[in-house]
């Protein structure tokens, strides 16, 4: 078989996507060519598929403290965000057309807000502090009589900052405004209990937690008003049309069941490795900035900015040294602007171009962190020697 992957490499891009856990893959396999029936069918293979989908729904719901009927499976985290925002904004049209989010959201949220602005909605984009934190009081002040929806991400995908979701949710609940959170980076990494958290809708994606790509869910608290997004069949309690991705849903259930059980132990292990990376880089490389909040951050994310160098060059040299990571530089974002998140926390453009995101998984080891620390100072020094910037 041809080699298509990164065998033997250090994979430090787990905030982008993760490796499918072997147990997850094993759970999915029977649903491709054995129990492949349509989950809406009345015959045996369909009934088996239906049973598997509902069992997965139960696992997902249990892992986040929700009722199974509050979980709707989708095609990805982006679809969950699009649906939550479009659906709630349209359902709230009678009350008003003002919607609120933040400057550091994923593009799945930001671009959906922009699309709604074109439809005549009015959007407010809240700023963040230098650590990327949203102030719940800013949310309170932004809510008006015609505000129908607030969307604030649970944890930032680039800089790892974990937002005060409970407090923001309380503000929204008091004002009677629907609150959505994009929790794509948080579900499976942080303990989440929706039976206690004042959140109306929450988006998640399987491939961020060692599940397969192509499946997400949207949690919709009972009583939340939301229009349909995908039109067609009566799947997902008539809320999300489209034949169920049975193997994907089964994989999501298994992945989240495993992740939820491992959160305390794996979280601590990843946090220790991240701490070693931060301490190691700070101790060996001058002119480096830690992005995101020093404490309120994802246990698996490190984001650093190196002055006078450009991120894509850094990534290419790291890749040549066997380490796969990511950057918020313009060249890697596919636009001329560096990451909107790094600009929102106040980094100058040229510094934002020199960012490096290292993101871990439960498979990451201290040895891999040491491998990074061994090559990184030399790579940064080499690029700086080539840089014309003072």
């Amino acid at each position, binding site marked *: 078989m041809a080699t298509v992957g990164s065998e033997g490499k250090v994979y430090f891009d787990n905030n982008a996507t993760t490796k499918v856990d072997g147990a997850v893959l094993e759970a999915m396999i029977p649903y491709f060519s054995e129990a492949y029936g349509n989950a809406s069918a009345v015959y045996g293979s369909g009934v088996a598929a239906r049973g598997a989908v509902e069992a997965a729904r139960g696992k997902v719901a249990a892992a986040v403290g929700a009722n199974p009927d509050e979980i709707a499976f989708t095609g990805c985290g982006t679809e969950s965000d699009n649906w939550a925002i479009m659906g709630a904004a349209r359902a709230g049209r009678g009350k008003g057309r003002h919607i609120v989010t933040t400057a550091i959201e994923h593009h799945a949220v930001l671009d959906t807000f922009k699309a709604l602005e074109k439809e005549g909605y009015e959007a407010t984009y809240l700023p963040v502090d230098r650590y990327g934190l949203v102030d719940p009081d800013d949310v309170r002040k932004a809510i008006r009589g015609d505000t129908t929806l607030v969307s604030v991400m649970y944890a930032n995908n680039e800089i790892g900052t974990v937002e005060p979701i409970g407090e923001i949710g309380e503000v929204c609940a008091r004002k009677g405004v629907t609150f959505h959170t994009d929790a794509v980076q948080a579900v499976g990494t942080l303990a989440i209990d929706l039976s206690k958290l004042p959140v109306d809708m929450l988006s998640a994606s399987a491939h961020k937690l060692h599940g397969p790509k192509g499946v997400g869910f949207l949690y919709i608290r009972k009583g939340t008003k939301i229009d349909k997004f995908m039109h067609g069949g009566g799947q997902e309690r008539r809320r999300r049309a489209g034949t169920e991705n049975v193997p994907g849903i089964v994989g999501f259930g298994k992945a989240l069941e495993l992740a939820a059980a491992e959160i305390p132990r794996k979280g601590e292990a990843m946090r220790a490795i991240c701490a070693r990376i931060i301490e190691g880089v700070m101790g060996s490389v001058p002119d480096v900035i830690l992005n995101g909040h020093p404490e309120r951050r994802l246990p698996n994310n490190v984001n650093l900015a190196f002055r006078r160098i450009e991120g894509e060059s850094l990534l290419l040299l790291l890749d040549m040294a066997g380490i796969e990571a990511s950057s918020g530089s313009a060249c890697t974002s596919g636009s001329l602007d560096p990451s909107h998140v790094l600009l929102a926390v106040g980094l100058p453009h040229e510094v934002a*171009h020199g960012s490096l995101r290292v993101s871990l998984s439960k498979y990451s080891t201290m040895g891999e962190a040491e491998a990074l620390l061994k090559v990184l100072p030399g790579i940064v020094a080499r690029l700086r020697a080539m840089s014309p910037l003072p």
Partner: protein
Amino acid sequence: MYGQKVMDHFANPRNVGEVEDASGVGQVGNKKCGDVMRISIKVEDGVITDARFKTFGCGAAVATSSMATEMVIGRTLEEASAITNTAVAEALDGLPPEKAHCSNLAEEAIKAAIEDYYEKNGISVKSGRKGCCGKCRDIGGKGP
């Protein structure tokens, strides 16, 4: 994403640094855009005898800088002035479409260095140089 030749020039860049007692220096680009390129040249009897670069930028920016210095060494000022961004990109066996502007920067840097040489020697020239790839206006910069 990048071809072999681009990766070779990125991984083993030729002529990094600054020419001592340079006859001309050209710096183009904008750090805000994430691309700054400085090329210094030594000119003897109208011929570029040495060229060095320093670049803050992506893989394509480094590779085009490296290739541009190789292309100008041994050329007359007229020949070097005629080197186009397309020629630099072609010499690298092509660049991904979204990186084409990086080769503009290399052409600009060569021209800027030559212009600087002319200015230092009291020779007046009119060039169509923009100073950078010209896209920075899109991100709120002042533009060329």
